[in-house]
């Protein structure tokens, strides 16, 4: 770990003024990566005193979640449990109670990959593993290395690192809006535009400009009559990142699917909204055959590597079974 400065401002404006620094909230990703020398901030800007820790109803029937709302508080919030159950389920399937008590909504949007090569202290450095996320142009050791946990969707020839978040998968189907504030003022970013595909710049992971701070996440009004589910598949029953997960929100009328949102976790380089699956489902009969076709459509473009080919079949089962559960 490198020496770093530390400030703890009390207002959003003051925090944004510290643009040379890295924001720290729960620290569950950042501190871990600092210990591994993956993150080496000059200054930590502790934002825990900012007034961003509330969950409020919006006049349009939606919900505003402060960036500092802890995962556990969000998961157990009565409105979230009632109107956005998929989010509560996704949060509770992640990490451990201790981590969820620390981790924040904004921080989870910024969660970084568990790629074992990326997390090596010397990755991207001379003598270390190649890693384009750490040092653009250095290559990707995971491509032909041990890549069982790596992504099969949204990959590029430069990076196959999986986005690890559960919360974000639920946010994707809820079509959240992210509010940010920076040196140039406030703006909003649609959830689907927030995380970036690796392409040839895997070091750029999201749409934030330098100095911008996530302040709120807004959820739209809940979809009337919709059901939802979050299904997470992994090797063991708890405390593990997804090998494949699926978030579903759908409404069935007269046996046909009239509204549907599908997103996948554990298999893609970003929280993966599957428009392909949605297209295969919308207007169709809500039955196993339709679900299977949707799963095939979702994974049609999958590009497996040596150790992660099983994720294609696993994700198909995950989607199919999640749809079965959501329509049960």
């Amino acid at each position, binding site marked *: *770990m490198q020496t770093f400065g530390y400030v703890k401002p009390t207002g959003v404006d003051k925090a944004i003024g510290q643009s040379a620094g890295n924001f720290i909230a729960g620290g569950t990703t950042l501190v871990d990566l600092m210990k591994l*020398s993956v993150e080496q901030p000059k200054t930590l800007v502790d934002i825990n005193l900012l007034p961003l820790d509330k969950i409020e109803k919006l006049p349009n029937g939606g919900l505003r979640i402060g960036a500092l709302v802890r995962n556990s508080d969000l998961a157990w919030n009565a409105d979230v449990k009632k109107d956005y159950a998929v989010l509560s389920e996704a949060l509770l399937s992640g990490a451990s109670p201790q981590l969820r008590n620390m981790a924040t909504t904004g921080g989870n949007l910024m969660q970084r990959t*568990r790629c*074992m*090569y990326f997390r090596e202290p*010397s990755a991207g450095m001379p*003598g*270390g*593993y190649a890693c384009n996320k750490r040092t653009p142009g250095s290559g990707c*050791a995971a491509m032909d*290395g*041990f890549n069982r*946990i790596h992504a099969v969707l949204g990959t590029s020839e430069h990076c196959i690192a999986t986005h690890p978040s559960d919360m974000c998968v639920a946010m994707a189907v809820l079509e959240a809006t992210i509010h940010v504030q920076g040196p140039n003022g406030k703006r909003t970013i649609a959830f689907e535009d927030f995380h970036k595909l690796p392409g040839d710049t895997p070091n750029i992971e999201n749409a934030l400009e330098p100095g911008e701070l996530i302040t709120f996440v807004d959820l739209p009004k809940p979809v009337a009559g919709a059901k939802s589910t979050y*299904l997470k*598949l992994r*090797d*063991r*029953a*708890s*405390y*593990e*990142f997804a*090998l494949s997960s699926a978030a579903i929100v759908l409404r069935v009328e007269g046996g046909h699917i009239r509204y549907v949102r599908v997103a996948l976790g554990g298999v893609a380089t970003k929280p993966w909204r599957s428009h392909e699956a949605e297209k295969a489902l919308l207007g169709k009969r809500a039955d196993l055959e339709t679900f299977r076709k949707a799963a095939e459509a979702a994974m049609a473009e999958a590009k497996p590597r040596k150790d992660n080919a*099983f994720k294609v*079949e*696993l994700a198909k*089962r*995950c989607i*199919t*079974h999640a749809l*079965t559960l959501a329509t049960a």
Partner: protein
Amino acid sequence: MAIGNLPNAADIIGTGVPRIDGSLKTSGTARYALDHDLPRLVHAVAVQSTIGHGRIRSLDATKAEKMPGVLLVLHHGNMSDAYRLVSEQSAGRTNEARPPFADDKIAYWGQFIAAVVAETLEQANAAADAIAITYDADDPDVEYDLSNFDGPRPSSWLRGDPDKALAEAPVVVDETYSTPVETHNPMEMHGTVADWDGENLTLYESSQGVVNHRNVMAAVLGIPRENVRVISRFIGSGFGGKLFPWPQSTIAAAASIKLQRPVKMSVDRRMMFSNVGHRPHTQQRIRLGANKDGKLTAIRHDFFSQTSINDDFVEHCGEQTPFLYSCPNLVVTTGMVRRNVGAPAPMRGPGAVPGLFALESAMDELAIKLNMDPVELRLMNDSERDEGTNKPFSSRHLKECYTTGAEKIGWKKRTPEVGSMRRDGKVIGWGVAGASWAAARVPCTASVELCQNGRVCVRCATQDIGTGTYTIFAQVAHAETGVPLDRIDVFLGDTGLPEGPTSGGSMVTSAILPAATDASKTAVKRMLQIAATTPGSPFHGAKAEHLELTAGLIRTTSQSPVQGVALEKGEFTPTRETMQGIPFAEILRIADLSGVSATGRTHPSFEDENARKYSLHSYGCHFAEVEWEPEMARLRVSRIFSVFDCGRIINTKAGTNQILGAAVMGVGMALFEQTHYEPQRGQPINGNFADYLVTTCADLPDLNVTFLDYPDLIVNEYGARGIGEIGMAGVAPAITSAVYHATGVRVRSLPIRIEDLLQSKVLSA
């Protein structure tokens, strides 16, 4: 059970006495090795190799040496004088033969290549990062397949003609099974606090064997044994990884001697995966020949065991094979295959656990080929005699283990067809496998002292690695003196105490019982003698044999006058007071003695003519149930019934705990645990608790443990054998057999992965 409700005296043996050290642990007051923050303490941090094979071309510590707080940088350029090699014959056993920093060679990723000592841990870490190293790197060999091997493959246990019998057998199973590297992950990691005072070295360690550790370190450092003291009062478990010293102990000791200051050196979780042992990878071909009725005619067990470049370590997978079943033709062959990995070490049930995964999996496959029940097959082939050594068993009730377990799970309701059993919308699979582990009585000395403050002190330089050894000693002292448990103090884990055994091989309980009993009986005898011969004692003039010590009180055993000594009438008349009893502490005060003590010894079974006539082993089996949800490829272990024949159980609570814990580790072995060596550099790439999966509470099946509790009086007077290791044997094959029953997928290469299960044709529940 509250301590107050326990049965008294001798009846305490065989009951569930809670740990006497439990409150120290739950309150955080038990001091572990790294809790010893001595005055003037400094910190050592290791630098690890980032290549898996090659040489150090250059190591530049000039920048690090000038950094704040840095006191010393150790590396191969300045350390060759600090250590000596250790002769296993004369000194003891180490885990890594090559001394740290012996030369510029790199044999595995993560090898310690330098260490920085500084005033603070942060300073040491910063300076360690500042050491500039260049390498001449070669490709590390971490090839998973071990069969491309042309080294020696010695045979053992040959009987009959196994190849001929296999050729003639009407039914043959010929399959290869493999187990991966599994890393020991005790809660407490390795660490040393070394304190050199100019003449004497004290080492605070997390060691499963303080006496061996002292002997090895004395030899390594060239210091007389008398001047080295090793202290391990509490150990956050070891699972075999802490049996013998690792380099961090040597480095800390050498640094302390050089600096004349106490040095603390810890091994972090990441280093646990590269530097301090693992259960080695094995690859085992099993060939079974049988008649059509299921009688075994041949067993061939040919295995490869992976080891490091510098250490000869074999995982003896064939140890149980010669005697588990009756079979006229048998052979075991061994191949030790070197890879660029750290030194292996024994891990809970070494040899037996991977070996029985292979043998018992093959037995299940044979049962399926024969269309025979796997329990029936085992009962039919059970052995009356150890056919490997041609000795009778001291006590073997494996058949009863199977019949008891079958009863408990309701085996007769099992339908053998794949995927044929359902419950609550899930497919159910049942599997069974057997277990065995050697028993012995190893040498031990222990002392027991009756003290003037009314307490009893028990002393032995063995250690409690979390299994309950403190409590077992207290139970014996209570059984022999009647002094309540809360007035018994047990001192372990210190080489200043009488020499005791290493906590390994499930041998401690059977070793300490005779010594502790002997010491207690002698101390009591001496105490009674003092009561009878001390002027002013109310028992003065009695004969010691007419006195007894019960519940901490000395009393006369007779109510009428008895033959005495030294009195005019030659007679001693019991009084109300002597009949009711007088605390032994009162007699010690009258005699002006601080205490009376005695040392007891355990005579080892390998020097006992009678014990040597027998095959000494424990037995058991596990019945496992899995639940398979094919819709989402989810497999969970739902129930395990474990039935064990481990002699008499001295403490049912601690004993049950051992089998439960072993079953939990067995679930991890079956489903989760594997250290992955990165193909390019040979690094254990999943060396953390997010990526190396161990069983979590959420994965725990319903666990049910039964002990048959037949005393084995050949082993010791209590009839107790060890129970630490055996519980892990048989878990994985019981689970893989259950998985086959549920899914039709036979997993021969552990762990069972989702990748394997996706091949299942059982697609709906």
